[in-house]
């Protein structure tokens, strides 16, 4: 039997409710179980992993896996753990996220509030950039990086990710700014504000939601990228994703050290998780902001 609820949506009876919650719990378990196994395994000793139950809690509780993954596990011939590569990733991810977000915001501002002849065409071309797959960039980008002397460097990766990301951040910001009334910019111009000060004082302060979307999106894309990292860098300059792959596939002793692998994987995934938790509440708000004016 359907009853009216507070929000006016009719919902089913208790049986339907049990089914809905059951399904949701099942889905939650499906997604959370791998994380549970990763976490527990990372704190187990090798002995417990080979002898014990996959779902058992770690006993004794051991940090060896984490210590080794961070500072002493071998990635190829180099045995200093992931720490060096972690900071590599930070070194190109942070500037690339900031650069692509800043350019995206400026592009969106120009494409919506300072339209010029052909600006729609330029926006269309930028939009195409979001459809071009990673793989198509590889060869031309490798040539360009070589020509400008940025191959096999953190700076080179920063450039690659910034350029690739601008198409996405421009799309996000443009769609957000298009909903901001043009009158606001006109008022600022009448008030004597220049192109830059209008952006700085009027547009930027109301852009937080969409900037958060850009930051989350770009951070996830760039931090998790494997392909550009493995193609454009080698050895010392590898990002953490490539190093994790090497760590997992280097088994000098012939024994799979699952605790180290799991800890390494969690270390690699942690920064994106943190960004989601910190900026996540803006994420949904920003994605839907364009739809509802105001």
């Amino acid at each position, binding site marked *: 039997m359907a009853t009216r609820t507070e929000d006016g949506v009719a919902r089913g009876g208790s049986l339907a409710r049990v089914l809905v919650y059951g399904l949701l719990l099942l889905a939650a378990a499906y997604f959370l179980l791998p994380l549970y196994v990763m976490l527990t395994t990372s704190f187990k000793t090798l002995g417990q992993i080979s002898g014990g139950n996959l779902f058992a809690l770690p006993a004794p509780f051991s940090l060896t896996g984490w210590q080794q993954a961070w500072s002493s596990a071998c990635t190829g011939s180099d045995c200093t753990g992931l720490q060096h590569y972690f900071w590599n990733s930070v070194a190109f991810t942070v500037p690339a996220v900031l650069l692509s977000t800043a350019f995206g915001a400026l592009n969106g501002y120009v494409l919506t509030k300072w339209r010029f002849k052909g600006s729609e065409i330029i926006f269309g071309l930028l939009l195409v950039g979001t459809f071009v797959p990673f793989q198509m960039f590889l060869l031309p980008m490798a040539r360009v990086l070589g020509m400008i002397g940025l191959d096999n460097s953190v700076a080179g990766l920063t450039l690659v990710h910034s350029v690739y990301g601008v198409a996405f951040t421009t799309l996000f910001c443009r769609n957000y700014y298009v909903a901001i009334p043009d009158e606001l910019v006109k008022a600022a*111009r*009448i008030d004597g*504000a220049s192109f830059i000060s209008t952006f700085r004082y009027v547009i930027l302060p*109301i852009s937080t939601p969409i900037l958060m979307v850009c930051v989350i999106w770009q951070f996830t894309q760039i931090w998790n990228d494997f392909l550009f990292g493995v193609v454009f860098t080698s050895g010392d300059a590898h990002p953490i994703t490539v190093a994790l792959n090497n760590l997992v596939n280097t088994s000098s002793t012939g024994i799979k050290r699952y605790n180290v692998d799991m800890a390494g994987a969690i270390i690699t995934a942690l920064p994106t998780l943190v960004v989601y938790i910190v900026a996540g509440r803006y994420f949904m708000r920003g994605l839907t902001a364009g739809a509802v004016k105001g």
Partner: protein
Amino acid sequence: MAVLNIENVSKTFGDTRVLEDINIAMAEGEFLILVGPSGCGKSTLLNMIAGLETITEGQITLDGRSVNTASPRERNIAMVFQFYALYPNMNVRRNIEFGLKMRGVAKQERGATVERVAKMLQIEDLLNRKPAQLSGGQRQRVAIGRALARDPALFLFDEPLSNLDAKLRVEMRTEIKQLHQRLATAMVYVTHDQIEAMTLGDRIAVMHAGRVQQLGTPREIYDDPANRYVAGFIGSPAMNFIECELIGEAGDTAVCLTGATDEARLALPSATTERLAAHGARRVVMGVRPEHLVPAAHGSAEAIACRIDVVEPTGPDTYLHTEINAEPVTARCLPSAAPAAGDTVALAVDVERAVFFDCDSEARIA
């Protein structure tokens, strides 16, 4: 010296000509209204005065200085927008002082200006609020405050009241008029509301299809419209247009008007007949405002018998809808003398106040 001088100004967007040969000179302290339907180019013209749109042809001078290529910042103007356009991230105080800040005015002076403006508009207790915490009327007041802070040579208003509800609109209209009387600064005010145009303006420019149809005082526009468009646009209820035949010679011309039954002949004043004779046409459009089409005195020879279709009481007046020469017309009568729908009433035309237009060109001929 004219504060604002618009000379032979035209504007084209791509292949579309939106403004054609605009000429307006504005005196010191004048309140000028640009009125017209949507798409007539009135907002475009205002934006061109503000420097937000480029000028395709012609010249605009402010205080005797050509501003064709000047940015909005370099023009001594302030503007109030239809949707308020308050900066949502700033509180009222910072909204008002933003223009001063952008022009490098010292903080102390800015503070004094904000206090003065806030006092004038009675928004002192709102200074620390954000725009989202204000009602529509308060927002528009702040927007006006932002314009006042700059103490410009010319104020521009772009349909500032069209977003407010009816009661507030009338209140704010009076306030803007008072403000103008107090400041005595020139104002250009864009509206599509002919009542706002009539009540506020020293002079009105009626715009249509990218042209100024007529520029004059409210009285001139109302009593002496330049063409049928202006006559129909200004006035509520609108002027009646009756196509009719002229009979007789110059000096003794009459029009034939048919109501419900018989044809009535109305002799026209001699000044009118001379102008009609000079024009030569035998069929013309006669324009009569509802207040000049009223129930006739008993026994009037020139009364037109009309069957009333609808009776519309508005309070002070009652309007009667009927037909003359098979065209719908509106007459006015006192509420106490109102007939019932279906009645036949003798109506009289005040021919002294009637105006005449060419059937095809719609130009005024008498």
